[in-house]
């Protein structure tokens, strides 16, 4: 699984970071950084929660 964020949609509200701080980080410059683009299957449930809760629908999962 690979995490894809549409940065044109993302507004850095850090909802994803609250769910998975080891994967998403909004830094002091107010931009979102993906710390781990290819988390393992153990993280799938949390990443799916991020996809669902992102208020901008900016996150998706690519299966490649």
């Amino acid at each position, binding site marked *: 699984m690979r995490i894809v964020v549409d940065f044109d949609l993302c*507004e*850095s*509200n*850090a*909802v994803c*970071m*609250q769910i998975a701080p080891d994967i998403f*980080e*909004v*830094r*002091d410059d*107010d931009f979102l950084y993906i710390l781990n683009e290819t988390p393992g299957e153990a993280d799938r449930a949390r990443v799916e929660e991020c996809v*669902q*809760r992102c*208020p901008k629908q900016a996150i998706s999962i690519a299966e490649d």
Partner: protein
Amino acid sequence: MTRAPRAVTIVGASLAGLNAAEALRREGFDGPVTLIGAENHLPYDRPPLSKQVLAGEWAPERVALTDPEELEEDGIEARLGVRATALDLDARELTLHSGETVAFDGLVIATGARCRTMPGTDQVGGVHVLRSLDDCLALRADLEAMPQRVVVVGAGFIGAEVAATARGRGLDVTMVEALPTPLSRVLGDEMGEVCAEVHRDHGVDLRTAVGVERISGDGRVERVTLSDGSTIDADVVVVGIGVIPNTEWLDGSGLEVDDGVMCDASCLAADRVAAAGDVARWPNALFGETMRVEHWDNAAQQGAHAARRLLDAAAGPFTPVPWFWSDQYDRKIQLAGRVRGDDEVRVVTGSVDERRFAAIYGRAGRIVGVLGFNRPRHVMRYRALIEQGASFDEALAAEF
């Protein structure tokens, strides 16, 4: 012993309703799922209605939260332009405005809220509220006509966003607020004053501690008369004085309604009946308080929770830390928690003068809220502390 429903009907086809429907499918529910919505639109996102769409930056289509193909794939039937007018819990039947009755088994009440209006303004053109896409497009058309002066009644979050968007269009804006300090009940005086300053800096003529007596004009609005006797010329008026939960259709159903549908801690209002979003009131154990929350994140989360609860009593209580954002000018304002006007407030990072800071709120030794101006990272960190029930001292000592 109650059982899980065999079919679920969701009344209110917006954020909470759609999230409930999608969550049912995510949880593996394979019975029929029907969304009944009074609007003629498929579920759409409201926050951009006071921001990007009103500003003219986004085409209205961009607010869609789903499309017919996606709904079909998920096996969710949407009945649009249909209003429920009554609920019979014994017969397990809904009445629709057409007089038709429909049977249901499981039910999610997600009828949201509507705007409070100013009495006597129905017949006056150019007076707007902002809740629906249709409201937004009507207001947008009036703003595009480059009015001389826009008057915003109420400096709450919606009013503030409309003022900011109208200023962004280069329009003259006067905002009238009955409280001495805008948002003082939600943010406290000190932080409410910061919000007031942001508007003044951006050229909004902000009048506080004064009410609106009358909005008048010959067919179309011409002036707003204030409680101190003064008048403001206006070609467009936007009334943002709060919302009323849509519960009238539940009258006589036996459900308890008190500024929202009363639910238990797990969002259940009756056997196999749950409620979610702006319409739902429930005891949030995390705060020891019964609340009704009018925020995007809550509608989405509670919709999903209501669905899980219908399927399984083990879903348990719904105990979120309420959170929302508001975009005004170039500021992203976020608030998490439950703040009261008299909570202790401390700025923990950044500077109020630069309008980039986070402040935390404490009550009875606990951290109960966090406000951020362009500090999303901090808001989420402190939100986590609120969730953990951290003490105010711990939160003050934390470094993020």
